[in-house]
């Protein structure tokens, strides 16, 4: 096995172009497990750890995205996201805080989560909920491609990267409303999600974003639930009034989230439980985010 250690981003892109089958390694928290379990024998490893841009984030305004955006370097570890970006990216921070253990959170990254594209990756529901204009910055010697998050996940553990592409960063709009993330595991830490749910309120454009993890072949949003609750909030003028959503609508939202999933029975849980738990998490997180929103309305008034 070859071990490629580019010192710069350009060298990395060149190496990837030359060795398209080389496996990038960032935090290594997925890659090393695969190697140890002997599930994967790549011809070469492409170590990205010397490239400092990947572990930096910046905020700014970018074409095609509204408002302030965080450009999150692919290798920024979860621990730093939770520490440094909990105001700007609350959903992703909460998701990052559920990943593995402190050791894993010190190494594991959103770029790695996207690279693996596991349906159980915890960053995905938060990224999906954060908005349709979340963009994955894929780069190769041929140039930069901005992949909308909705087009990124294409199959079980498959993403839409080309063989010569690397993830440079993810561009995520700064939260314009409350965001939450919940995940089920059969113990109280260090669990791969049995199922997970992310939600983000977007008062600016009057929408609600969602993301479902571990309950379908790919991470996906609950489109019907988003449309239903977006419609409710708009039609009833709740964005302005900050009134109660009411149990019936909350219940319906939960049902639609559960219905959006296509879970399976496996060693981690049954399909029936996954649907059930998604509905509960959807109801709870909608309630939490809405309470937070109405409080912010009131304190602003």
């Amino acid at each position: 096995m070859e071990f490629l250690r580019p010192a710069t981003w350009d060298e990395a892109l060149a190496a990837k172009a030359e060795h398209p089958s080389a496996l990038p390694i960032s935090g290594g928290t997925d890659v090393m497990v695969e190697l140890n379990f002997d599930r994967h024998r790549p011809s070469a490893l492409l170590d990205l750890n010397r490239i400092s841009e990947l572990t930096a984030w910046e905020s700014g305004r970018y074409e095609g995205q509204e408002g302030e955006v965080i450009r999150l370097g692919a290798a920024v570890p979860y621990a730093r996201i939770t520490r440094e970006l909990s105001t700007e990216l609350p959903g992703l921070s909460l998701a990052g805080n559920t990943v593995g253990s402190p050791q894993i959170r010190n190494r594991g990254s959103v770029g790695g989560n996207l690279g693996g594209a596991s349906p159980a990756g915890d960053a995905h529901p938060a990224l999906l909920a954060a908005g349709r204009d979340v963009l994955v910055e894929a780069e190769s010697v041929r140039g930069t491609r901005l992949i909308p998050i909705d087009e990124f996940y294409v199959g079980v553990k498959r993403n839409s990267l080309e063989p010569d592409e690397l993830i440079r960063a993810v561009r995520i709009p700064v939260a314009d409303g409350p965001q939450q993330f919940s995940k089920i595991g059969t113990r109280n830490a260090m669990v791969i999600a049995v199922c997970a749910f992310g939600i983000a309120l977007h008062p600016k454009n009057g929408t609600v974003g969602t993301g479902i993890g571990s309950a379908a072949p790919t991470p996906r949003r609950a489109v019907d639930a988003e449309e239903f609750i977006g419609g409710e909030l708009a039609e009833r003028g709740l964005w302005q009034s900050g009134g109660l959503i009411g149990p019936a609508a909350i219940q319906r939202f939960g049902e639609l989230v559960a219905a959006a999933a296509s879970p399976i029975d496996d060693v981690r849980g049954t399909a029936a439980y996954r649907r059930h738990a998604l509905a509960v998490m959807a109801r709870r997180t909608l309630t939490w985010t809405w309470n937070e929103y109405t409080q912010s309305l009131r304190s602003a008034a």
Partner: protein
Amino acid sequence: MSTIRTEKNLQGITTAHPDGIGGSPLRPDGILKVKGEFAYSSDMWHEDMLWGMALRSPHAHARILSVDVSEAVKHPGVQAVMTHDDIPGSKFYGLEIKDQPALAMGKIRYHGEAIAIVAADHPETARRALAKIKVEYEILPTITTEEQCLDPETYGYVHEPAEYKGHASGNVVHSQKVISGKGVTDEVRAMADVVIKGDYVVGMQDQAFLGPESGLAVPAEDGGVDLYIATQWLHVDREQIAPVLGLPENKVRLTLAGVGGAFGGREDLSMQIHACLLAQRTGKPVKIVYSREESFFGHVHRHPAKLTYEHGATRDGKLVYCDARIVLDGGAYASASPAVVGNAASLGMGPYEVPNVNMLAVALYSNNPSCGAMRGFGAVQACFAYEAQMDKLAAELGMDPVELRQINAVEQGSIMPTGQEIDAPAPVADLLRRVKALPLPPALDTTHLDVRDIPGALSNTSHGEGIVRGVGYAVGIKNVGFSEGFDDYSTARVRLEVIGGEPVAMVHTAMAEVGQGGVTVHGQIARTELGVEQVTIHPANTEVGSAGSTSASRQTYMTGGAVKLACEAVRNELVALGRKRYGWTYNDLSLVGGKVVSASAGALVPIADLLGDSAIDLTREHHHRPTVPFDKETGQGFGHVQYTFCAHRAVVDVDVELGLVKVVELAAAQDVGKALNPLSVVGQIQGGSTQGLGLAVMEEIVVKDGKVRNPSFTDYLIPTILDTPPMPVEVLELADEHAPYGLRGVGEAPTLSSTPAVVAAIRQATGLALNRVPVRPEHLTGTGE
């Protein structure tokens, strides 16, 4: 020789050494382990060393039509490829019944059974060579359910009748009845006012030790082999290895390597024979280290069980009878199944006086993974069932569940269903009283929530919604030491000599230190008995006699007892030397503070002066009192050496909507006879309680049609620090006069009652029946099996 006898002179020499028994000196391996510097068996290295690896079956039940190793042999870097054809000696081994082939012969009986082994100059080479071995299988239907196992005419035999080696017949490895009083007849049933029935299921738990199976076999010039190995019992390993190698036992020498946990999972052999065979064949040292995944296939697990209980009681809560049937799945090979059955049958009534008993326990052969020893050994499964029964009975009678247990609790003088009198303290009612009297943890404060304190923790599933608290109690009974007539003696050699002007004791045993702290205790015993400061622990090996197994809560009792005997013998010889030299006539002599001390006359002489250049080096065996096998038909007999008891109170918070559980507190009370090392004792109780908690809410090897579905720590979950609650422990010290220092084995009892206590608390919170462990979120939300 003059002695000045003043009060002052006696000060300091009559007080016990702080690092002697009753003290809590730190363990010698502790800091190394915490810093990652301890050398485990997987860290060993030898010049010229080869790496061994096994090819394992992907099927649970298959006929092997052919094995073609020709391509593997030719693979560059490969030094040997072996199948059962290449075994020089006996082809079978086993702890109690020699029914397991060292390498599969013609048939595969479980998923992961080893077929061939390879030695190569690099692990990667070995792996590639394994991939080149061609095995042709004829896949057979698996025999995995109780129904299939018990109907061999229809479903077939795991071991054909012609090759059957168990103690029963068909697909039953072993069975044991216990019948006491009048048994359970219609007449007996009629004496009960209330009857409680229940069916219970216990899933397959794994020992989940952290150090994978590993060892290094080094061929010796005399044609023998030296094996450095992480195990629980050096001598019984050797007894099983030598015949397969075709060697006399004295040519197979074992030395204990660093052990990373055991919990019963190292009582059977894993890679020992394979490494030795390859070393013998290649003439080179061979190291084998299992990967985590292979480890799940490389050791036996706790028997999964189905238990059917029927209790009858009077209106005022006195038990009248119990009718019980325990079916343990032993898997493909016998391992420790017979002894596990003996325990389940004889301890399956719990620590209760039950006048009329009809009990049957059996272990089955199946195409599931082999099951054998694990902490609690047959007593764990039964405890889950009888304690659930006690709670149901209390509910039926409208009684307090603790009071019901206390009314029926055994005490010293009680007769067990086997007819054996409990002839040592049995403070069952008091242990329950003590856990109940402990202050309860404060209620959940939902206004200042830290999500780490509630079910789901950082997964952020609740901000207080859906959470209900429950409290549950349980108590259990476990035996200490090997039972049913087995003489599991221990040997200790103690040498006293002067080094650098100071008397130093050396303790040499074959005891496997697996993390229990035996080496700490041996030092404490030697300091107390010989009055020395310095104690060296000799590496454990087969140069000294057997120490028996580090299991059955027995090592401090048995090998600790042997060290005590050897120290006493050394002391007697030293004193005899003094009598001879100085003409002492005192009969109140002891060794304290490096001196020979007379209680009446004070310090007589420094040990160093008395010994001079000579050394006293003596070996003693410690045998526990004899027991007898249980009668096959009635289960009667003085079968157990000692009983031990632990009680738990569990407080849990359950998110009843999501089915998530957080154990808030798990309190224990246990009688330990005498705490030789109080810190270690509390550690054992907390560790055992945690392992029981794991069985209650998460730990299970999932097997489907004989295939293991979760052989990794990604999906075999064990408690993390956020799952492990504060565990207040009350330690009672009521001496057992039959045991050295009055001590009682500690390690296993806490593993029994913590599981049912946690489940009882979940039942209280949810109102659900919960007849199966581990309890999964599905069971709490009605969303699946």
